[in-house]
């Protein structure tokens, strides 16, 4: 594309340079704009380009890499480019889902930042015609002692609850991480899942039909969130508090009305195209709808319902006021449409029409402010190939250098107790108790489990939702972390008998203009891709959040993921805790890659690992795990994750006060070192499986029957379940009661005022 400048403006003046800064454009981008317009942009166009060419809206630093994402599958009905991805479940049922970040707002104003994050992701779902049926939240906070952290945690959790509970969508799973790299830049990613029941239509944002009306519905437009998209495309400095006016305020009651009214007008087939007004508000929705439809829009900005009559057209265009939708309808259907919205107490305002000439005209009180080809703003944004290096495998050491520290020689039971009390390992009940997990009356597994499950009303099948990305693995190695961001949640799904169907991702990274950040970005996408291809689970939606950097400190690269899986029913799913005594305890494992686990970060300056991880091998192993989880006699399953084998056993013992005895012979098969440290190591990947003692032969036969699909997979019988305690060879014996105490007290020890 030619970007020859034709502008006439004097670039040397301080005014011009100040304007570039205000609108967060650089001079090269200004050249491109002049080249595309064949003139200098006028005032309103500065604002349009600032918004739509922001990193947040244009993906200009990531697009070249996102194109390589694995997104092929016969099940995918809609993917990137629409508000959310849509996957076919068969039998007429389809789901729309997406995860999205609201990091910057949640740090500046935690309650509203998190609340509007939930509101925004819900609109992405129901704007397509799907009724939201589940929410999930991926949160990364700083150390509990970090400045403002108690109030940020409190505000974010209250905000998510305040919004999600009121709109009536259950929060069924989540992940909450803590690390110092998030001290000045927390992450708040919200995922929503929506269901199309048989016969319900998928609505798209592509505008159609010359002469059709452009209709605005929902809350009135105010000054909140003006320039929010470009704010989210910049690192934080010392003045982040001054950005508070760019935060939006949410009204979940209004959103609830919008959900019901929008689904009703869709059901009556009164809508041609529809899109929510998210980042960059009316600007992005109108230009994107026109661009996708290959049509023009004539918009009268003065017809937009305003909260404040003194707003300028620029404010109207860039406002990120919440709970608003833009739709296209046939003129003859407008009255019926408006009547539905009136019934729900909402206004529908005609603000323009679809035109044949492919330009968006913006009018304000009789004056034509601009007339511009929407593709220029939507399709022709710059794409940058930011410098990056191909990272070699990091931090590999030939021996277990982490072996001689905290746990070894020390009391393993004491060490386990510390892990259960640690903020990374302690109960999240404080968080999840504040979210309604069962509204909708479809929740089969909630946040107390490793997989959230809702039951589909028509087919009675189970839809499983899990979040992924473990920052401690990302800090170890970006490629391994990328593999793990798909593999670990897919493994968790498999252990409950779910087949992973598709993935959404929220790529939270630091400043993409820094080579190391970009290198991590590329490496982690590569890792994710490997596993997705192997599992044939396409990445169908998501967003990228760059500039998670405060005062030069970048966050841990954090490509959070949301996986959706399917199984034939919700009956007979293995539990995540031991359900009876004398069950046979097995460990299913894929040998090859071992790390010191989450705890090594506590006492060791770095993270270390041995071995290499191959995404394809992992994919095969996960498929086998799914078959094993559905084998005869399986009662309980749980992946061994952070803090290793003992932590997993402890968590499995809390549900029914039933623990396990792992005998020395059994332990030798999986931890030949037979030392305390090995109990806290993390092997990618392993799971504990408890089996009905009368079915062990059938169970082992089932493994033999499928093992050729993953030839290196191992299954070892290591012990049995017992009441009241956990005993591991000669290394440890501890009462469940005391472990529970640690697990349930850790949160309040870290956050005194949040008990």
């Amino acid at each position, binding site marked *: 594309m030619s970007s020859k400048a034709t502008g006439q403006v004097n670039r040397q003046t301080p005014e011009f340079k100040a304007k570039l800064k205000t609108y967060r454009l650089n001079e090269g981008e200004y050249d491109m704009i002049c080249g595309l317009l064949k003139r200098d942009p006028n005032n309103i166009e500065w604002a349009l380009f600032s918004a739509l060419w922001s990193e947040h809206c244009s993906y200009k630093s990531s697009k070249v890499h996102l194109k390589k994402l694995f997104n092929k599958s016969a099940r995918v009905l809609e993917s990137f480019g629409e508000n959310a991805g849509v996957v076919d479940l068969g039998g007429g049922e389809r789901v729309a889902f997406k995860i999205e970040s609201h990091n910057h707002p949640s740090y500046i104003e935690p309650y509203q930042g998190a609340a509007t994050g939930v509101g925004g992701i819900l609109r992405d779902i129901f704007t397509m015609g799907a009724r939201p049926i589940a929410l999930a939240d991926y949160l990364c906070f700083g150390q509990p002692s970090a400045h403002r952290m108690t109030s940020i945690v409190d505000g974010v959790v209250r905000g998510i609850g305040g919004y999600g509970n*009121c709109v009536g969508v259950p929060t069924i799973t989540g992940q909450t991480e803590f690390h110092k790299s998030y001290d000045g830049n927390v992450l708040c990613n919200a995922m929503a899942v929506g269901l199309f029941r048989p016969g319900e239509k998928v609505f798209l944002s592509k505008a159609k039909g010359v002469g059709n009306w452009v209709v605005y519905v929902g809350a009135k437009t105010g000054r909140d969130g003006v320039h929010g998209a470009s704010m989210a495309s910049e690192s934080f400095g010392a003045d982040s508090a001054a950005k508070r006016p760019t935060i939006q305020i949410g009204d979940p009651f209004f959103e609830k009305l919008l959900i019901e009214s929008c689904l009703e007008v869709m059901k009556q087939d009164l809508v041609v195209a529809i899109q929510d007004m998210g980042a960059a508000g009316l600007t992005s929705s109108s230009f994107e709808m026109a661009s996708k439809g290959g049509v023009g829009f004539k918009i009268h900005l003065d017809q937009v319902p305003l909260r404040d009559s003194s707003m300028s057209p620029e404010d109207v265009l860039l406002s990120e006021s919440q709970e608003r939708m833009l739709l296209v309808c046939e003129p003859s259907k407008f009255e019926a449409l408006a009547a539905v919205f009136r019934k729900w107490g909402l206004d529908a305002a005609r603000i323009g029409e679809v035109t044949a000439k492919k330009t968006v005209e913006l009018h304000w009180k009789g004056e034509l402010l601009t007339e511009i080809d929407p593709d220029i703003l939507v399709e022709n944004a710059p794409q940058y190939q930011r410098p990056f290096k191909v990272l070699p495998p990091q931090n590999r050491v030939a021996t277990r250098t982490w072996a001689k520290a905290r746990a070894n020689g020390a009391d393993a039971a004491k060490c386990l107790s510390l892990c259960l009390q640690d903020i990374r390992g302690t109960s999240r009940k404080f968080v999840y*108790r504040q*979210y*309604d*997990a*069962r*509204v909708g009356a479809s929740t089969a597994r909630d946040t107390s489990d490793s997989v959230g499950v809702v*039951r589909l009303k028509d087919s009675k099948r189970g839809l499983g939702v899990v979040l992924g990305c473990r920052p401690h693995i990302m800090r170890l190695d970006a490629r391994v972390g990328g593999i793990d961001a798909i593999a670990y949640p897919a493994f968790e799904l498999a252990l409950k008998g779910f087949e992973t169907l598709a993935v959404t991702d929220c790529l939270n990274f630091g400043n993409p203009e820094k080579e190391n950040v970009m290198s991590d970005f590329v490496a982690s996408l590569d890792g994710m891709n490997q596993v997705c291809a192997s599992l044939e689970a396409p990445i169908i939606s998501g967003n990228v959040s760059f500039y998670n950097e405060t005062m030069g400190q970048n966050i841990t690269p954090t490509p959070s993921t949301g996986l959706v899986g399917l199984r034939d029913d919700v009956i007979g799913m293995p539990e995540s805790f031991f359900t009876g005594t004398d069950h046979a305890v097995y460990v299913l494992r894929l040998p090859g890659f071992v790390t010191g686990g989450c705890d090594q970060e506590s006492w060791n300056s770095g993270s270390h690992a041995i071995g290499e991880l191959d995404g394809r091998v992992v994919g095969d192993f996960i498929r086998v795990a799914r078959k094993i989880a559905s084998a005869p006699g399986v009662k309980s399953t749980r992946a061994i994750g952070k803090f290793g084998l003992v932590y997993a056993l402890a968590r499995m013992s809390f549900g029914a006060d039933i623990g396990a005895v792992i005998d020395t012979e059994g332990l030798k098969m999986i931890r030949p070192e037979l030392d305390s440290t090995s109990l806290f190591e993390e092997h990618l990947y392993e799971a504990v499986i408890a089996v009905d003692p009368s079915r062990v032969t059938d169970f082992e036969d089932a493994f033999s029957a499928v093992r050729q699909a993953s030839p290196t997979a191992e299954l070892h019988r290591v012990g049995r379940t017992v009441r009241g305690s956990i005993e591991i060879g000669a290394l440890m014996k501890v009462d469940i009661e005391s472990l529970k105490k640690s697990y349930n007290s850790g949160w309040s020890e870290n956050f005194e005022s949040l008990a």
Partner: protein
Amino acid sequence: MSQVGVLRFPGTNCDRDVFEALEAKGRNPEWVWHADQFDSRCFDALFLPGGFSYGDYLRSGALAARAPAMKSVREAADRGVPVLGICNGFQILCEAGLLPGALVRNRGLRFIDDWVSLRLTNPNAAFDRRASAGARARLPIAHADGRFVVSDDDLKRLQDQGQIWWQYEDNPNGAAGDIAGVMNEKKNVAALMPHPERAMYDWMGGTDGEGFFE
């Protein structure tokens, strides 16, 4: 076949759950829209489901209690029609003066989602088949304003007149007298904070809610 009216206010979000629970038990539910008055003789029972009616930005249930449909609910209650409130429905019935007491912010000031154990204090055949006092039920709760408050004198009167319906075994929200559900004097208006419609099948985690919809 007997008709059961299910009230729908803007912001009600357990409406479909209650509707489906009634259908599952062979009842014949029908929507009642908040803005419409109705003939109270049309229904053999009325259900007020949970949610956040009108956003609950004032006191929970305060605006809904003044909706046109509530005039008809009051007429029905006067005529002896069984009226059951769940969660926000409980709050609305208190605000409407059809039930004694009030529901205020939980002890601890946070929303609570959990399973709770309940004890049946005074059985009421109009709403629940369980016939023996002391029967236990395990049901989910999900509320921010679930703390039942009432004056000491009134609490005594509720006890004496057998108006306490369900009590918490382990009080989660600070409710006076551990009260999870109450009835009016005539025993034809009753409400509880827990959600029986979320405990209909084993896969939901329990079936103790079934009896409320039979």
